């Protein structure tokens, strides 16, 4: 049954317009060049995973994309967004919830400047149900588990209906089971909402199961740009996935290491 799934994406429709594109972007910290001459164009609605060894500049790339940092050279262009929609949201490794705001108010933070208080609260309530936290509106973040907190952070990131969602190892701190659960949730929500997703991860399996395309960063450059044209939903442990995982690991560690 693997073959027809592989074929299904080959009759590609016209490519979507780019959600963002990096043109010759570089970033230095002092004398240290972290990113050099990055070229990367991501079409709208694509799910991109970025993988690379620790310290190779993944977070830096994401911060540049989110506008939290400015490039030293090159250009980053982003697609225009409609009014009432946020352009890009970033989800961090830590949930970064406000401990003094109830769960529903934490989600409503995502509509700052986009909607009034009452509307924000109502929409936050709906979104909490979508991430599997129905009925937890009035809880303080401190009583939630790690996975639940990350769900709240996800709801907060999504509520503004961002055109691009940037995720910086959002599942890195979770246990293996919760992580798989969250991957399913993320994949499902991405499929229904159609935003562009950029996921930074250390987990090759996670990248392959979620992404349309995997970018391997090495020494500040794009070392590998690999399309994963597998049908969804994808299952952990499927042999097709293993093939792609091999390719990525080979790029990361050289052929002899595995």
């Amino acid at each position, binding site marked *: 049954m693997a073959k027809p799934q592989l074929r299904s994406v080959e009759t590609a429709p016209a490519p979507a317009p780019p959600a963002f594109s990096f043109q010759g972007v570089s970033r230095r910290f002092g004398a240290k060049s972290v990113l050099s001459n990055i070229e990367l164009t991501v079409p709208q609605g694509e799910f991109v995973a970025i993988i690379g060894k620790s310290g190779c500049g993944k977070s830096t790339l994401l911060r540049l994309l989110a506008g939290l940092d400015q490039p030293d050279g090159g250009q980053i262009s982003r697609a225009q967004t409609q009014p009432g929609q946020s352009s890009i*949201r970033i989800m961090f490794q830590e949930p*970064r919830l406000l401990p*003094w705001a*109830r769960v529903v108010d934490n989600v409503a*933070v995502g509509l*700052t400047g986009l909607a009034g208080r009452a509307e924000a609260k109502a929409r936050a309530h709906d979104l909490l149900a979508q991430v599997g936290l129905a009925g937890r509106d009035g809880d*303080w*973040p401190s*009583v939630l588990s790690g996975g639940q907190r990350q769900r709240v952070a996800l709801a907060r990131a999504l509520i503004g209906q961002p055109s691009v969602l940037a995720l910086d190892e959002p599942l890195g701190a979770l246990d293996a089971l919760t992580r798989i659960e969250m991957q399913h949730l993320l994949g499902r929500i991405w499929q229904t909402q159609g935003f562009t997703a950029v996921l930074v991860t250390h987990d090759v399996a996670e990248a392959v199961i979620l992404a349309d395309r995997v970018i391997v960063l090495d020494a500040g450059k794009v070392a590998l740009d690999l399309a994963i044209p597998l049908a969804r939903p994808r299952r952990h442990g499927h042999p097709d996935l293993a093939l792609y995982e091999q390719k990525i690991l080979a790029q990361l560690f050289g052929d002899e290491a595995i």
Partner: protein
Amino acid sequence: MTAGSNRFGAAIGWLLPILILLMWEVMSRLGVITENVLPAPTEVFAAFLRVLKSGDLARNIGVSSWRALTGLAIGGSIGFALGLANGLSLLSRNITDTTLQMVRNVPHLALIPLVILWFGIDEGAKLFLVALGVFFPIYVNTLLGIQTVDPQLIEMGRTYGMDRRALFLRVILPGALPSIFVGLRYALGIMWLTLIVAETISASAGLGYMAMQAREFLMIDVVVLSILIYALLGKLADSFVRLLERLCLQWHPAFQKTARS
């Protein structure tokens, strides 16, 4: 913990003071503690009724409380404002913080002779000392609270498009609040201490004055009564702030009433 055992836990705290009071009474009756050292609790209570009836007590408590609260309001709000300013603006901090840290090292009670020269034994002297005393704990802890707000939360607020006002009201101030409360409770202690000293040295009304007057007439029961009332007022103020803390810091794990445990 259930509500019942909670109430029991609060009640058990009063057991020891009552026991001490009883022993004190018994020892006084037996003559172990002589009357010119420490009068019996019943005598102190009699003194309480006496000054209550004459109206001295209400008047003196009123005067002292007014001084305490006015001094706290003046010194506290200046300390709070400066703490905010120096926490939020590097320029403001650079200009004032060194000076304030130097002034902080002067024990404010050492200024009493100077203050008496400046203000006489007016209200101004007492208010000045109390305000100065409460200023520093509130200033230092407000500043500390703001400086230790999680920078990751501030970055989060920025990425979600909070303007400066929203960032302050929704992230910085709530984050600094636990520390501000620590400062406030510390300030209350200093407030009473300063007032006792100031009123004892120079005053024409107030609890400290009442105690000094009684000393001159060797009414040791009134002296003891004044001390007890100081303690009671201090405890009252502290309880009030604790209540406020519980209301404002509900989110804080330390103040959460969990169903179990």
